[in-house]
């Protein structure tokens, strides 16, 4: 590996050495959600009941299934991992975790046995049942966010569906799940008890730790890095011709399509050999090739960014937890001047090394970074090379069942992994943006350009995929250059402290005006980064804010005013005035309940409203 990568490790080590210790706690009142969970919670609030964050997995179990052992294993699993018993709610403007005490686990078991049916009829019924259960909405507040269902097909044949909401589960969790479940099943099947060693920490401990750590100087240090490295206005790759709306909340659900890919052993070997000679990792070569693919398929767009999930399990104790820890890294690429693949690769190495070192900042804490009103998740890339732990249940043959359907919050997600020297994976795509043929073309082109890249890395990018002729995508709804004309802000902006101080003694009409001023100035301060738009805005939709800004804005208002207004109300409000009035009503309600709780007469005057 190149010295840059080692230096990145050292830097990450230095940054993390300043972190407080991760301490297990017995009981914490209202433990906060982690910053990653908070982001998902807001996204869920923005489009409740969506299935973009479902992570279902299904297996066909052939052989003598021990139903009792399976149920007990799932119960023990839920006891062991607090996250599987956790729900989320808003309390005084903050997202908190609620952990219910462990109880009996119900394993719904649905019989699809019918001797009169032909096998293909049964398969059709199974597919339908799986589909229904896999995409049945989760309720983050009421739960449960972990569900298991067993579909019985015959005496020795059934299908187990495990379903998680992303807010309590991630890719890494799958390994933990399979390990724990495999071990538990064996134990219960043999009539034993769980012998798994106790977990040292829980997800709530980690969330507390994260809030504590990212309050201090570490946050500023990480923010400074990202501000410097993402200082150019960023654009997502524009692959399809259809212009995208900037605001994720205004988009309908996007249907998810999937295509598998497996590289030939020759290509896999060639890539691995090449990485050793070039002093880079496999991840970097695949990412560089992905950049080229996007570049060629966007009609030569020269600057774009790709997001990449990173496991983010900073302490060894968190490695054994089921939970949602993933951070998204924003990885820009600059393809101006027709560089060679080798040059691009060097650039990618620098970008990735820096991102690795500064990976601990959750995306919504990026400050001073202009994502041009773009959702982060247009193009995602993931690669892992740690072997995946297989689910193993005693005496049963287990084969994964591919699930169909579902929705996604991205346009394109290329997820690859390497095992035993072979690179394979899945291209997931939004069916609103690509059809299966287009997605298949992308994968074929990706393979072809990788073959070319590792055999002739000195070639300029213009020599790659010469057959791809894509007209340049039309400009984005918010033009990138020149900067949209925005006058500098004028006049003092009203802060929450000022508003709340003045509210107490203000007359009802003044309160409305105060709240409107507060809302407008908060929108300008938070969502528009202090730039007053040249045309007055009437509603949030007009501003076409990206999801991160919306999350930040609604989060800020909810926290500053200590109110629990559903995030969807922010999106649905048709005017700033209407929204301000609703905020006022809710704020007054909290004051009233506070006054009631405080009989000494704090803010008693509010009760007369």
């Amino acid at each position, binding site marked *: 590996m190149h010295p840059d990568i080692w230096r990145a*490790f050292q830097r990450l*080590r*230095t940054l993390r050495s300043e972190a407080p210790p991760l301490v297990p706690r017995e009981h914490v009142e209202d433990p906060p959600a982690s910053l990653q969970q908070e982001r998902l919670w807001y996204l869920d609030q923005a489009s409740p009941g969506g299935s973009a964050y479902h992570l279902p997995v299904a297996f066909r179990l052939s052989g003598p299934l021990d139903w009792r052992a399976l149920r007990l294993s799932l119960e023990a699993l839920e006891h062991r991992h607090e996250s599987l018993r956790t729900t989320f709610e808003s309390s005084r403007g903050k997202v908190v975790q609620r952990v219910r005490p462990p109880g009996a686990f119900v394993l719904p078991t649905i019989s699809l046995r019918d001797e009169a049916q032909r096998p293909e009829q049964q398969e059709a019924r199974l597919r339908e049942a799986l589909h229904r259960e896999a995409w049945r909405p989760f309720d983050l507040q009421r739960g449960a966010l972990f569900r298991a269902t067993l579909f019985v097909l015959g005496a020795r044949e059934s299908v187990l569906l495990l379903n998680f909401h992303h807010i309590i589960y991630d890719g890494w969790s799958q390994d933990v799940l399979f390990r724990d479940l495999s071990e538990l099943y064996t134990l219960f099947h043999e009539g034993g008890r769980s012998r798994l060693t106790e977990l040292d920490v829980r997800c709530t401990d980690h969330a507390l730790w994260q809030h504590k750590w990212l309050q201090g100087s570490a946050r500023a240090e990480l923010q400074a890095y990202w501000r410097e490295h993402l200082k150019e206005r960023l654009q997502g790759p524009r692959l399809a011709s259809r212009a995208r709306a900037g605001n994720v909340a205004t988009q309908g659900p996007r249907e998810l399509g999937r295509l598998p890919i497996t590289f030939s052993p020759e290509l896999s070997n060639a890539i691995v050999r090449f990485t050793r000679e070039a002093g880079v990792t496999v991840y970097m070569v695949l990412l560089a090739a992905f950049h080229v693919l996007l570049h060629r398929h966007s009609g030569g767009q020269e600057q774009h960014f790709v997001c990449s999930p990173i496991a983010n399990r900073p302490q*060894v104790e968190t490695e054994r937890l089921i939970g949602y820890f993933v951070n998204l890294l924003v990885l820009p690429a600059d393809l101006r001047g027709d560089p060679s693949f080798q040059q691009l690769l060097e650039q990618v190495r620098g970008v990735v090394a820096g991102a*690795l070192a500064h990976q601990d900042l959750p995306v919504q804490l990026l400050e001073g970074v202009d994502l041009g009103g773009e959702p982060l998740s247009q193009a995602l890339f993931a690669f892992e*090379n740690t072997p995946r732990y297989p689910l193993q249940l005693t005496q049963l043959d287990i084969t994964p069942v591919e699930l169909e359907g579902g929705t996604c919050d991205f346009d394109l997600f290329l997820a690859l992994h390497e095992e035993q020297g072979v690179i394979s994976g899945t291209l997931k795509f939004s069916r609103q943006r690509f059809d299966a043929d287009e997605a298949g073309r992308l994968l074929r082109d990706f393979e072809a350009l990788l073959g070319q890249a590792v055999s002739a890395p000195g070639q300029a990018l213009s020599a790659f995929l010469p057959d791809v002729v894509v007209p340049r995508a039309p400009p984005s709804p918010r033009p990138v250059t020149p900067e949209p004309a925005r006058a500098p802000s004028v006049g003092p902006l009203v802060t929450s402290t000022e508003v709340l101080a003045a509210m107490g003694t203000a007359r009802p009409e003044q309160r409305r005006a105060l709240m409107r001023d507060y809302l407008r100035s908060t929108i300008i301060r938070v969502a528009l980064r202090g730039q007053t738009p040249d045309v007055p805005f009437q509603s949030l939709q007009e501003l076409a804010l990206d999801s991160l800004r919306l999350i930040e804005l609604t989060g800020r208002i909810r926290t500053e005013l200590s109110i629990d207004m559903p995030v969807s109300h922010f999106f649905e409000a048709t005017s700033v005035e209407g929204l301000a009035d609703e905020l006022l009503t809710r704020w007054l309600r909290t004051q009233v309940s506070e006054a009631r709780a405080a009989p000494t007469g704090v803010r008693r005057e509010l009760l007369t409203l």
Partner: protein
Amino acid sequence: MNQTVASYTEEQVARIIRDHIDQEFLFRSKDSGLADDDSLIARGVIDSMGIFRLVNFLEQRFEIAVSPPDIVMENFRSLQAIRAFTVNRLRGRDGQESD
């Protein structure tokens, strides 16, 4: 190789590290055939984030401190290198404790 350092023999240190790598990084390749001086990095056993998992493991398992300048290729190149580094740190820890 049978010297005892901080209540571990060097052999025990070597065994613990190898078991960990087998279990966490190689568990699917039944016969890894990984020699003591094979390059873990060139063989792709440990990639960028794997180093961190390994460092965390060494710190917790052996109660040693790994500082940023320790995270260099020389210390993580092979099983042998990791063992030598760990034994070295264990000695250092022992030295500090007897002060």
